[in-house]
């Protein structure tokens, strides 16, 4: 459904993403893994149409990514993007104006599950609550591709569980979900595939249950083999 063909992005002389060919299919949850700075965010931004590739191209349903196809892609970036004056309810209304596929009913349902209320001011939210709000507005869209960049970064165990649950609940036959993380084990049990990115290169895409069955390896094991022990963040 969503694919990059030989996509490269350079920032000056630095190559952030190097000739990556990768295909995301509906019905699956993908964990995009790699240390910080390995190119995950840049790939996602190109897939969301927010960053222009230096060479290569993104495709959606076999057609080059366009304004039309971008409407089917929901992307949650790591940057904060709400105004400080907004309440949680305002954030929902703001999104409703921006995205045709935004469902206020789904948004309130997600808020309830995440234990957030509409009257809360965004500037008073803890980092865990903010992370949950960002997930809720993204997931309230009926998009065919959902990309979440580091949704589990810096938040507590219970909020992480709420988030992983909302990911499995949003999954469906017609949807592709791509979640990036440098915290590998968090995504271990909820993902179908692990995509390993290193220094801008695509190393491999593993079917996780298959590599458990065939090689007795978890994605944490594979991560260690690919990136080595020295100074990696976990």
């Amino acid at each position, binding site marked *: 459904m969503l694919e990059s063909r030989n996509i490269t992005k350079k920032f000056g002389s630095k190559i952030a993403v190097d000739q990556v060919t990768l295909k995301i299919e509906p019905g699956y949850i993908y964990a995009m893994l790699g240390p910080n700075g390995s190119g995950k965010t840049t790939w996602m931004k190109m897939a969301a149409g927010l960053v222009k590739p230096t060479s290569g191209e993104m495709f959606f349903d076999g057609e080059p990514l366009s304004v039309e196809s971008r409407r089917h892609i929901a992307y949650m970036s790591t940057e904060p993007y709400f105004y400080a004056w907004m309440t949680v309810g305002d954030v929902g209304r703001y999104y409703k104006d921006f995205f045709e596929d935004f469902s206020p009913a789904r948004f309130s349902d997600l808020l309830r599950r995440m234990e957030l209320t509409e009257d809360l001011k965004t500037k008073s939210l803890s980092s865990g609550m903010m992370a949950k709000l960002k997930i809720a507005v993204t997931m309230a869209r009926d998009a065919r591709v959902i990309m979440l960049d580091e949704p589990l970064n810096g938040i507590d165990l219970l909020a992480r569980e709420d988030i992983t649950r909302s990911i499995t609940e949003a999954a469906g036959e017609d949807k592709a979900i791509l979640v990036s993380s440098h915290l590998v084990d968090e995504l*271990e049990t909820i993902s*179908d595939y692990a995509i390993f990115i290193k220094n801008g290169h695509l190393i491999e895409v593993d079917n996780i249950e298959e590599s458990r069955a065939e090689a007795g390896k978890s994605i*944490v094991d594979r991560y260690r083999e690919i990136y080595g022990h020295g100074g990696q963040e976990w």
Partner: protein
Amino acid sequence: MKFNTSMPIYLQVITAIKRDLVTGKMKAGDKLPSGRELATLYEINPNTAARVYSELEQEGITFTRRGLGTYVTEDEALIRRLKEEMAEELVTRFLEEMKELGIPPEDAINMATNALSRKL
């Protein structure tokens, strides 16, 4: 549920469900959660949950009523057989691990008997 992430998750969930059946936590004919609910309940991937049910169905442990969902078999004998199989597996593993420690099966059984009499 805490998983061993080096082993297929679907097998571990199958074992957990079988254990619930054998211990009577779930009974013959009971309705099971939907695949989606199972994924939420165990915090696992939805395709893995679907696989759990397809494997259980192949083993005859569950069956689907069209439009109604997945149910536990009504065959009580099958559940008893399951219990025997699980018990046998445990005994085999016990004997194998004792053997690895260099303890022959007869001694292992004596040790188990002694442990039991101490407990009583």
